[in-house]
């Protein structure tokens, strides 16, 4: 039976992970269909309805400019989603390249690359991100790149570890003896076999990236106004903390539910992909 079929069967059996996957799909649908779903324009200012509490017209209330919080949150889901996926895409690409080079070639290249990983792990990531964002203009692109560039180290270590064991296997020797070059051996023969842990790391990575994006936007270093992001709505929430609790409550709940769903999916994937847990029933 194919590995993916087994994985899917095992994944489905994990109810929490399955629920997480359903929520993730729902969020993707909301993000894609934002213009159709949102009851108001996310940037429509209504100065007669400033900071009004949740009501029938505005289920999650309005902000300091009278904008509908629910609509802003629906559009904000686009930011979280795209930052999550693009940042993790960048992190994984860097991690795979560095990890496979280090693991495949070994020797001095391995030592140098792994010391680089050590250095990157020592610098407080959040400091590094803040520095870069403060230097370059803050925008959604800056955030994606910065989160990606500071988040690849775990993937690199995972891929390297996989390569260290895989490169000694017979099928690699077979590939080489039939004339495959180094690059072909790395990317066509070894890498596909090293990807399962990367998938798991990527799912957790999306969750982490969404959290970081919201923190950066909260500090005013993320998505710039008037574009809505869950983190920047929370900034307004902090400014009006004594009068408007709804500005603080709902966007944070949205972040919590989204991140929780990705984490549950990641945990489910990890269990489903771990052959050590297959013993009881066999693939």
């Amino acid at each position, binding site marked *: 039976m194919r590995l993916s079929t087994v994985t899917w069967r095992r994944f489905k059996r994990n109810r929490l992970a399955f629920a997480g996957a359903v929520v993730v799909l729902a969020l993707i649908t909301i993000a894609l269909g934002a213009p159709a779903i949102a009851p108001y324009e996310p940037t429509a200012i209504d100065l007669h309805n400033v900071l009004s509490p949740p009501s029938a017209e505005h289920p999650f209330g309005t902000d300091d400019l009278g904008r509908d919080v629910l609509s802003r949150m629906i559009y904000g889901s686009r930011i979280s989603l795209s930052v999550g996926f693009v940042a993790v895409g960048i992190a994984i690409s860097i991690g795979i390249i560095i990890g496979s080079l280090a693991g495949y070639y070994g020797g001095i290249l391995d030592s140098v690359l792994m010391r680089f990983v050590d250095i990157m792990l020592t*610098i*407080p990531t*959040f400091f590094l991100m*803040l520095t870069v964002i403060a230097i370059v203009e803050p925008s959604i692109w800056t955030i994606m790149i910065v989160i990606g560039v500071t988040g690849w180290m775990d993937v690199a270590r995972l891929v390297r570890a996989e390569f260290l064991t895989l490169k000694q296997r017979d099928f690699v020797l077979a590939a080489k003896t039939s004339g495959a070059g180094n690059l072909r051996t790395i990317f066509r023969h070894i890498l596909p076999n090293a990807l399962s842990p990367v998938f798991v790391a990527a799912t957790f990575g999306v969750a982490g990236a969404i959290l970081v994006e919201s*923190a950066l936007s*909260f500090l005013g270093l993320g998505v710039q106004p008037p574009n809505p992001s869950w983190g920047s709505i929370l900034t307004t929430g902090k400014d009006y903390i004594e009068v408007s609790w709804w500005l*603080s409550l709902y966007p944070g709940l949205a972040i919590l539910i989204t991140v*929780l769903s990705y984490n549950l999916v990641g945990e489910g994937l990890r269990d489903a992909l771990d052959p050590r847990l297959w013993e009881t029933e066999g693939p």
Partner: protein
Amino acid sequence: MLYYTGKRLLMMVPLIFGITLITFLVIHLAPGGPVEVQTEMSTKVSAQARENLKRLYGLDKPLHEQYIDWIKRFVKFDFGTSFVDGRSVSRKILERIPITLIINVLSILLILSVAIPIGVMSAVKQYSAFDKVSTVFVFIGYSTPSFWLALLLMIFFGVQLGVLPISGFQSIDVSGMNLFERLLNWAKHLVLPVSISAFGGLAGMSRYSRSSMLEVIRQDYIRTARAKGLPERTVVLRHAFRNALMPIVTILGLMVPALIGGSVIFETIFAIPGMGKLFYESTMARDYPTVMGILVIGALLTLIGNLIADISYALVDPRIRVRGKEA
């Protein structure tokens, strides 16, 4: 032991070099140097004035010379003077660092005293109701943005109940208080920041303690200990827990950068004048010398955290020391 410590210290040297290099390059290769920021407010600033500013900060020299100059001063902990107020950067950092360290040490203690018992309990009673409930809480904890939790706690304890202050680390009238009142005042101000700072680590640490403990409990010597009739308490606390503690020490070292980075967020939210808030203000003002100084200091603190973790690891585990000698 001395040999191991020495070797471990030597390994730090290339790391420190790499950290300073990355810090330096990140700041200097980025577009929009410090001069642009100081002059962009008025377009009337002449090219001549701009050149003067550049020369003042040594920005007209080639990059490698700037780096060497900076390293030479860095060895003496001289990070130059702030672009913002012209004060010495190391003095500015020194003023701010104690409060940040206090909060971080308190939150590490909080993490250890809460997370390890939870982890050990759920491992010992795996699949029990307690294990399941704590697993759910761990997942929610992992996924909660700590700054959001901070806002909610501020609304609840600060605004609704009015029992805790929501900003600063002491009241304005603190100088008129006696020692006891002062301590109480500080404690009240620190409850929320320390809890928030510890929050992120709590979930991770209890998870690690759980899996580390589960790993140990499956070992043969635990079965032996049980088989020879030792009370369960002794087996868990003396035989299992001591061995499970070692990986936990390492994880603690790895958590330091996240804690230090997190200080930016909670210090900004709670208006605590520590290193994190200084860092935030400096990046906003593009005060490069201060930013570089704090980046390097933050990385050094991480290195020291790792070093302490490694050394204590070697202290409790003789295998590490011996292997270190053979290699």
